[in-house]
């Protein structure tokens, strides 16, 4: 397939997952934020924005600005509206490759972005709606696109972004440590019930973090997402080597995953920020490596004449 199209698919995967993750985070934190006194609300809003990867433009950044920055700002790549808009733009460029179902669901989502009230209550509904739409997009991607190379790129983008998003979710805990319970964190990831059924009586921060970070069967855990990404990379480049990996992306993803899986610690909570930093770095490095290997358009447009 065309490199340009592969890149579009990779980014559709990333953007849709980003919208999904941001909606989850916003939904849960909004509840908390709303209860805080004005002053604290402001500083927490700014920190939350920082965790999501953007900087507040002015000091006068409170709840309404946060809503705009994370949900409705179409210009920003960190907001839900911005991500969904970008996903749809990418799909428009790869329209003949993706199924019409996938394209239409993204397109309809894009046109639905404006049909919501932009206050706190409206944002709850908006987040819910986004989760529905992204679930529909992923479902259609899985059921109406052949699981060939194009789908692998889509899933690759999705898995990398998912690892990144879960890392951010876990990082938000620091922001709101004064009361951000592990229950909320698990709810964020939609992992609450799964966690309860697996861990039974083992409640607590440590276990919740462990679950979201290391669980081998929960699809939104970081280890699971990285394993997915690794599998996609392996399928995209099935050449087997006796020693090592020449594929940078595989090396980076594999290293990040195995470090987490094989790391032993008694105090996960204090190491958490460090882990999160490492995961996010690995994701961005892997993404760069994939661009270099598969989407490289850096070759100049040059004419090559007759072959002598």
């Amino acid at each position, binding site marked *: *397939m*065309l*490199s*340009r*199209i*592969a890149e579009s698919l990779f980014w559709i995967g990333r953007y849709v997952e980003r919208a999904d993750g941001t909606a989850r985070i916003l939904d849960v934190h909004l509840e908390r934020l709303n209860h805080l006194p004005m002053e604290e609300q402001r500083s927490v809003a700014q920190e939350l924005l920082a965790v999501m990867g953007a900087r507040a433009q002015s000091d006068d950044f409170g709840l309404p600005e946060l809503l705009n920055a994370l949900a409705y700002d179409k210009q920003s790549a960190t907001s839900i509206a911005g991500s969904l808009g970008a996903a749809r*733009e990418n799909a*428009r*460029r790869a*329209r*003949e*490759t993706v199924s*019409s179902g996938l*394209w*239409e669901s993204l*397109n*309809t989502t894009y*046109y639905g972005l404006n049909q919501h009230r932009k206050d706190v209550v409206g944002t709850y509904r908006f987040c819910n709606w986004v989760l529905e739409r992204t679930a529909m997009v992923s479902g259609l991607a899985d059921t109406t696109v052949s699981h060939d*190379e194009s789908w692998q790129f889509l899933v690759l983008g999705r898995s990398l972004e998912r690892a990144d998003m879960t890392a951010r979710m876990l990082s938000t805990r620091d922001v709101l440590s004064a009361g951000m319970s592990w229950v909320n964190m698990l709810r964020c990831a939609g992992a609450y019930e799964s966690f309860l059924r697996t861990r039974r009586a083992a409640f607590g921060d440590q276990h919740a973090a462990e679950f979201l970070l290391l669980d081998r069967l929960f699809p939104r855990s970081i280890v699971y997402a990285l394993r997915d990404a690794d599998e996609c990379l392996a399928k*995209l480049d099935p050449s087997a080597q006796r020693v090592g990996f020449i594929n940078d992306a595989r090396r980076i993803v594999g290293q990040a995953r195995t470090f987490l899986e094989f790391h032993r610690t008694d105090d996960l909570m204090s190491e958490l920020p460090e882990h999160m930093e490492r995961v996010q770095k690995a994701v961005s490095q892997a993404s760069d490596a994939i661009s270099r290997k*598969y989407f490289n*358009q850096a*070759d100049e*447009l*040059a*004419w*090559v*004449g*007759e*072959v002598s």
Partner: protein
Amino acid sequence: MSDLFQEYSEAAGRTGAYDEMFAPGQQARRSYGQVALALRELSLADVSARADSMARTFLDRGVTFDFAGEERPFPLDIVPRVIPADEWSVLERGVAQRVRALEAFLNDVYDKMTVVSDGVIPRQLVTTSAHFHRQVHGFEPAGGVRVHISGIDVVRDAEGTFRVLEDNVRVPSGVSYVLENRRAMAKGLPEAFGQQLIRPVEEYPRRLLSALRKTAPSGVDDPTVVVLTPGVFNSAYFEHTLLAGLMGVELVEGRDLICRGNRVYMRTTAGEQRVDVIYKRIDDEFLDPLQFRADSMLGCPGLVNAARAGGVTIANAVGNGVADDKLVYSYVPDLIRYYLNEEPVIANVDTFRLEEKEAREHVLDRLDELVVKPVDGSGGKGLVIGPDASRDELDALRKRIIADPRGWIAQPVLQLSTVPTLSGDKFGPRHVDLRPFAVNDGEDVWVLPGGLTRVALKEGSLIVNSSQGGGSKDTWVLADSPQVPVEVIPRPTIAVRERVSVWPVESNWRDSQKEQQQQQQISDAQEVTANA
């Protein structure tokens, strides 16, 4: 007829045009019988609800054209344009004939120019055409076809006669709307489809792909076809994606291509892959910076040389624009007689060649009664309709004609035929044209039944271009009258399997529910006794 058609006949009378649906006296023509019947049942609320839902579907599906950087849905009207079988068979023959003549003309123009030496057409006319490209002179394109895809615009004049308005053999667009309109209409006005046979349009992509593959460079067993688009900001980008998608081929941009050793390759995730046939949807001027505009970022350097060496088929061929030239258009009837030895099936619109002194003077005297068009324009650009123009516009036009008589042609104002079109709360007559599409695979010219009917949505307006407030209508070509016996293909009967596999949850669930209720009653009863 419901209130929706109130005042229609008066409005139609005012235009003085031929109405496609009604004969004078508001009698629905035979071909429109079923449509009239279906519309009679509908109230204004029904019609507007359907129109809304059709527009919504278009937006969701992304059936849009790009206008000034904004995606707009292409307005589709709910009343179709219906062409009876006998009229269509004439159009079909006429269009195919024209394509064959233009094909022969282009082959000749880029070769020996016998048409000039035999005195049919002046040499100067060909060589002064803006789209006569010397870069492609003197070679036959791989596959031997130049006009793979064409759109011949025809209109119906006040007498009801079809006439050709212009030929498009460069990059005719609009076929995607033909395909999408039919899909939308099947849902929007299902009642009208029932009793009559409407010829299907969905085979177009298949025909196109097979024609493109057939004209691949010789020696290629399984040719790779691509559609070359200028990119997502082109007004017809939707069409490019739709055609590429329906043909199942890659949609490439110039930057995806690379020429090496007179072969063309595309950059894929698995390295470079050879491309054999390019369905070109960009203008010649932007195709190859080595030959045409050096500042073009849309094309790929080396394509023209590759085509010359026979390493790649470009469809439509580079340089076809000379046949689109509106001054050449005025010679097409002669070309048909010259190359094919036939009489033209569809007549041209009377055209004044402004280079001829007599005609020019005649036209300059009557500018306010005529339509004046630039010879290389498309999309209604630069066109001046005399009766609608102001004094100043006409004076400016007069100066431009005198300065460059080769650049303009003049035609009488045609009252294009009308079809009822929803406007506000009733139907009104609106002018339409028709663009049938033809696909030429080198052996046979196939004409898509129907084509794109464009409609001017403003009352009285004669400009149907989408960029200037035009919409479209689904175009139905009725199949031959059912007197021709249709062979009934025996169908195998379908065996009915009456057993549906289910997990027998239902019965168990009911049982247990009953049991639980009983249990509940018992315990309630016990409680009562205990309390007693």
